[in-house]
């Protein structure tokens, strides 16, 4: 027993004093930003280090400092930190990687690839495209003495938590170049007037920028189609005029999203893809008093929403196909579930020409159920009546 305890305790010796990192000397990088000079093509790497001042009093005051490094490549720029008095820096706790649009458009993965094999580097950190000046991120607001960089971390986390976009971690970004079917949108975050905002998303294919973008609304449609839980998001909008209803706004929260892909081989060589999306929603604004939301009215509204969402989803799919970015993962679906069909395709050339049809099925959950029987009758009437049936063909 003594021996056993001794042996297990002696394993602790392997903690190694050579690798000791005294906390006081650590320069923990909070955020790293990459930019490319348009003329010289040189890379600028900004390291933002947040440290606590006067921390001995029980609560500290966070101070963010910026160090700019320049070089012909990212690795050359980072190497210069060794010669600076602010270093050595530690990226073990980095909370966000920021790329300028210039940097993100020009083979960013090739520049950052080394991070994958760099020890003590936080590769599970999200990567976002930042539109703005890095200097602004460390400027303090007089009112709360909090650097914007702290708000940025919370903001980026909330984007993912609320299903606005799926964050791409540094590792996912770097390994995506090895998978020809790894396509995704990367969030573009804007900072203006001390506020952060999700502006759009740049579309990537296997780690390369495709040249295409999605607007925020298109991004929302994409998240619905890939079945992302929308979290606490409140979705609001206005029915388009083509629906025949004037000035009708809607607002709802999504209770559950279910998606299903179907491949159908018609007479042509290319298959037709159908994306079924079932949304269970709870409305808080749909043009009528929610307290007395009757099934008949609710059903009509469901149909109008379906028509509108199908239309918006079609526009999103067209944007994706135009950019040759399969962020919907249709290629992965075909490869996994229809291997024979997959072999007959030349995916990158065929994808933009494929017919992809979204089919939304929206259910309002908070309907007043007293009209249950009449609703069924009404439904039957509606399917027969040309008013809605004509409009509902998506």
């Amino acid at each position, binding site marked *: 027993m003594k021996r056993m305890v001794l*042996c297990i305790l002696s394993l602790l010796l*392997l903690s190694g004093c050579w*690798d000791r990192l005294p906390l006081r000397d650590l320069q923990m990088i909070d955020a790293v930003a990459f930019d490319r000079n348009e003329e010289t093509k040189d890379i600028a790497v900004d390291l933002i280090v947040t440290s606590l001042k006067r921390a001995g009093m029980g609560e500290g005051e966070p101070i963010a400092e910026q160090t700019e490094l320049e070089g012909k490549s990212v690795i050359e720029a980072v190497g210069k930190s060794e010669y600076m008095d602010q270093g050595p820096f530690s990226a073990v706790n980095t909370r966000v990687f920021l790329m300028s649009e210039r940097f993100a458009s020009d083979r960013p993965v090739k520049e950052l690839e080394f991070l994958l094999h760099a020890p003590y580097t936080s590769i599970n950190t999200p990567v976002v495209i930042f539109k703005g000046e890095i200097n602004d991120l460390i400027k303090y607001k007089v009112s709360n003495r909090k650097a914007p960089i702290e708000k940025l971390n919370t903001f980026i986390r909330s984007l993912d938590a609320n299903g606005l976009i799926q964050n791409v971690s540094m590792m996912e970004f770097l390994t995506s170049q*090895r998978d020809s079917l790894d396509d995704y949108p990367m969030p573009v975050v804007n900072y203006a007037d001390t506020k952060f905002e999700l502006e759009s998303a740049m579309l990537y294919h296997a780690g390369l920028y495709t040249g295409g973008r999605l607007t925020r609304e298109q991004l929302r449609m994409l998240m619905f189609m890939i079945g992302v839980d929308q979290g606490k998001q409140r979705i609001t909008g206005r029915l388009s005029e083509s629906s025949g209803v004037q000035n009708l706004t809607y607002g709802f929260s999504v209770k559950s999203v279910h998606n299903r892909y179907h491949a159908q081989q018609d007479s042509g060589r290319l298959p037709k893809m159908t994306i079924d999306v079932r949304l269970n929603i709870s409305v808080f604004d749909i043009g009528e008093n929610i307290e007395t939301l009757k099934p008949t009215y609710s059903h009509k509204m469901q149909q109008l929403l379906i028509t509108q969402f199908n239309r918006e989803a079609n526009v999103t799919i067209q944007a994706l196909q135009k950019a040759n970015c399969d962020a919907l993962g249709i290629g992965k*679906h075909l490869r996994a579930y229809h291997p024979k069909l997959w072999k007959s395709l030349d995916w990158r050339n065929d994808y933009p020409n494929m017919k992809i049809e979204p089919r939304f099925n929206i259910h309002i959950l908070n309907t007043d159920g007293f009209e249950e029987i009449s609703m069924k009758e009404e439904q039957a009437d509606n399917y027969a009546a040309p008013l809605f049936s004509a409009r509902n063909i998506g």
Partner: protein
Amino acid sequence: MIHLKQLSTQQLICLVILTQVGAHVLSIPYNESRNSGNDAWMSILLGGLIAQVVILIIYWLGKRYPSQSLPQYVTSILGIPLGVVLNLLFAVYCAESSLVVSVTYASVIVRWLLLTTPWYIILGLLIAIAAYIASSPLRSIATVTQSIMFMFLVCLAIVLISGSGKGDMRNILPIGTHGIGAVFKDALPALWLYAGYELLLYVFPFVRSYKQKSIIIAMSIANGLTTLTYLAITFVVTYKFSEGQMNYISEPMVFILRQFNWPVVQSLDILFMTIWLAVIAVTVYVYLFLSARYLASVLPSGIRKHTLLVWIIAGICYVIGLWGDHREKIIRFSVYHNFATGVMVILVPVLLLLISFMRGKGGVVR
């Protein structure tokens, strides 16, 4: 006494599992997916099944000489000169296995954890701890191993937790597109993963059991659990990485652990590698122990002191290991090691059983 006849079947299970699993858990299924791609799990499963067949062969061999271990009965099968040579070869093979495992894991520690700690310190401490345990009697070794089993389970839980979350089940599909030939080809590197069951060649007579059958049941349970562990790791890796990505990441588990984001523990990879060190130590000390026992059987009775032999072998391993700080050397050496494993762990027991059958020698049933 170095080995009292008091190894329970539970202890045998722990010993076999922890000797089988080693430094390669971090690289599964890289080598096993070179041809079979996302069907690597089939190769892993096939490797486990082949290992089970070899276990059966070793069991039949042991059953014919139930009161003797391999170093003793090998001379009755092959004669004294050949028996001594084979015992010597087994001693060298076990010492070499111990060296390969310790050098491979020391390399992982130097690359990912302790970047500036000198190689000779990491390797020295690992081998010294293993040698200290290996110098104990078999029963003490089994007791220590049982305690380390808990750490193994913690590591397994970490693997499963890190495997949850973002991934794509479609990476595993479609099943069987690479063909049966590719699966068989990759079953060979998968088979090397299971080495460790040859422990039974030595410990067979020291297992306390009412029926001989319980030995094979214990061995099958151990091999089955190791197969399940490897399968779990393979599924986690395939869930996280597509086939194209797997081709470029030789230590996928390291990246999955680094990628995992959990507010409670910042760097799960560091935690895992530190705990896994104890599991690695089991493989190292079991092989050191076996090497010393095989060596003792060929030495004159005056210089058979187990503790001394263990420390001498450990010292030799350490000195040779000092040249192993270059990863390329380790990878090149592991090719020879795999070949040696094929010969010593699979071919030799099969031949011994065949010769034993031909000579018609059998033991008395206990």
